[in-house]
């Protein structure tokens, strides 16, 4: 049955209040025809505008960099290398954030991502796994990530646990299991292929950046060009309406957490390659980095709206701030305060934009967050 859902329905259901009747296709067609409706509702217009704001923030950060360290920025090859370094350092959190964005758009939250990365990383670097070579290591990292994500999804969709609680429990449990497996030691990866993932450049660009790009493109297509993506928006915007529109909300929620887990598995391979090792305490607080990046990227924490590109820009902005503070030799305490400030500012700007936009369009039935 669910395969037959008209694709327009979930998209439409997203903005409607809970008591709305199932969608009338004719009305949808009318609304689409007016053009204006799809301009502000779709991923195109407003999202693009917000992303322009993020790009502007990025430009400001780079200008600050140029002003504070003209000696470094005067060197073109340094600037190129630095840009690649920023992207490389953003790559692991970036992959995690793509999965996180799906979960948040779908109306959930995943606090266990850092722990899943650690568990998958530890699992793929045990002596036994390493004996299977690079293929075995990658397979186990991805499978562990996916499996933990499925467990999260089952607890939330079929066990009816609140996502916050279920993934918080998973965060503690997965780190515990990782510590148990690794016997609390740092497990060094002796696999040259795995370690090479972090040091290989293809056409002058690090392999890690390609992996990030591939995940982002896949995520973008999945969110914007497939039924799965439309359903995600629908489920997050209004689960009841989505259910009435014929979406299997539970199964879809399960898939979202599985997707997030799989992203963590990919990130675990990347992080293990970068650090040439894994341990239970790795990927510390990545859940917060990923959530923060998604939020400043314009993803609504209550679900139903968000963009992959916005999340990517969010990650890159944080990575650029870290870089900016590093090249100026400033303390990380100040850096964390600035990061916090940027999160608050981004959300404030979004709210103001969103409110004025809805007022401008005179559409009161649209709920502001």
């Amino acid at each position, binding site marked *: 049955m669910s395969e037959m859902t008209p694709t327009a329905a979930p998209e439409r259901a997203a903005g409607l209040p809970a008591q709305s009747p199932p969608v009338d296709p004719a009305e949808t067609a009318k609304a689409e025809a007016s053009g204006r409706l799809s301009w502000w509702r779709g991923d195109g217009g407003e999202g693009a505008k917000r992303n322009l704001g993020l790009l502007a923030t990025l430009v400001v950060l780079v200008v600050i960099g140029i002003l504070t360290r003209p000696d*470094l920025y005067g*060197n073109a090859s*340094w600037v190129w*290398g*630095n840009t690649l*370094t920023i992207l*490389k*350092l953003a790559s692991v959190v970036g992959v995690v954030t793509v999965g996180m964005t799906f979960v948040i758009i779908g109306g959930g939250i995943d606090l266990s991502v850092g722990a899943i990365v650690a568990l998958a990383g530890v*699992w*793929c670097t*045990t*002596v*036994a*796994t390493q004996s*299977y070579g690079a293929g*075995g290591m990658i*397979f*186990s990292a991805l*499978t*562990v990530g996916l*499996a933990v994500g499925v467990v999260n999804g089952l607890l939330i969709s079929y066990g009816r646990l609140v996502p916050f609680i279920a993934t918080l429990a998973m965060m503690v449990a997965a780190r515990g299991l990782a*510590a148990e*497996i*690794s*016997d*609390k*030691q*740092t*497990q*060094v990866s002796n696999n040259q292929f795995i*370690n090479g993932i*972090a*040091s290989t450049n293809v056409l002058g660009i690090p392999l890690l950046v390609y992996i990030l790009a591939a995940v982002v493109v896949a995520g973008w297509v999945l969110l914007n060009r497939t039924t799965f993506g439309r359903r995600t928006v629908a489920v997050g915007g209004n689960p009841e309406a989505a259910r009435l529109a014929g979406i299997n909300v539970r199964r879809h929620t399960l898939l979202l957490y599985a997707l997030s887990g799989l992203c963590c598995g990919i990130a675990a391979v990347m*992080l293990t390659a*970068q*650090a*040439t*090792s*894994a*341990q*239970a*305490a*790795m*990927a*510390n607080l990545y859940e917060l980095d990923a959530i923060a990046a998604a939020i400043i990227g314009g993803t609504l924490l209550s679900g139903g709206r968000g963009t992959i590109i916005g999340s990517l820009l969010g990650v890159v902005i944080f990575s650029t701030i*870290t*870089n900016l503070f*590093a*090249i*100026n*030799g400033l*303390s*990380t*305490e100040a850096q964390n305060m600035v990061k916090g400030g940027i999160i608050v500012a981004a959300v404030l700007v979004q709210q103001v934009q969103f409110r004025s936009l809805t007022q401008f369009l005179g559409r009161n039935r649209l709920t502001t967050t």
Partner: protein
Amino acid sequence: MTQHSRDLSRRRLLFGGAALSAGVVLAGCTSNEQTPTAAQTKAAATGGNSEPGKKVTIGFSAPAADHGWIAAITNNAKAQAAAYSDVELKSVEAGADAAAQRAALSTLISQKPDVIVLLPHDGKELNAFGLEAMKAGIPVVNLDRAFPDARAYRLQIKGDNYGMGVAAATYIVAQLKAKGVSNPVIGEIPGIDSLELTQERSKGFADTLAANGLRVANRRPAEFTADSGQQAATGLFQALPKIDALWNHDDDQGIGVLAAVNQANRKEFFMVGGAGSKKAMEDIQADNTVLKATVTYSPSMASSAISLARLIGQNKGMSDLVELQVPKEIVLASETITKENASNYLKLGF
């Protein structure tokens, strides 16, 4: 319809089977069997203090390990206790924080051990426990994290964080002088910056450099983990296109720092590590990385603490000293391991 459902069941069988076999393979992958690192114990020699004496029950508590160093502390204590025929070790998990450790310790007291060896979560918070135990007539051996109150412990044995910084800076200054580098660029990658031990290490480092007219050009803190070390080092390399010397506080995070060195293809500087892990010592001995030295903060102190606790329990002194009792405070010197002496230290690496 029947066609459809049969497809579905086949698909389920396929996916179910795949999931099951993946699970079986994965479960087999958690084994970590390799030659166990010989714990840093002192073999019970014959004669003198090593002669089996009065039976001593030692209570032991250290925080749950999330890091190689703490894991080595617990392993060493257990191994050293096992080396004595007259020592029985009662180990309690310290839990996640000071409150949990206090609860665990009160059960330990009720078992009436002869001596308690304790690595507290926080020396200040567990000071009261030390007082209580001492009052109950159980000598307390404080491992590494000092109690502020001198009445709260019978013996304190700890490493020297400030001295680590001094040792690292001393080695760096000597090397730079030998190379005749003028105006050197010195980088620093500390561990978790909010910890007192990190601040002491950095202070010792900065003070010693300042005494030689040098300063740290940039410091990027990591979190004692390899992945954070890699990220901190990558940031540092962007900030400093040319480095002469680098001190990384912790050899565990040093795995990541060395990975970053390879990834950024930087070879122009030399690096000093901290703590003294086995891998760091092997790297120093092999002399094929930028890591040329490490300054110790050895978890072997746990083995020594058990040996001394046994002596306290048997009412004996350290036989090389004149005094009839074990001293009250022992601060281990931070030693500098280089290629020349690495072979002597390998057995102490964790």
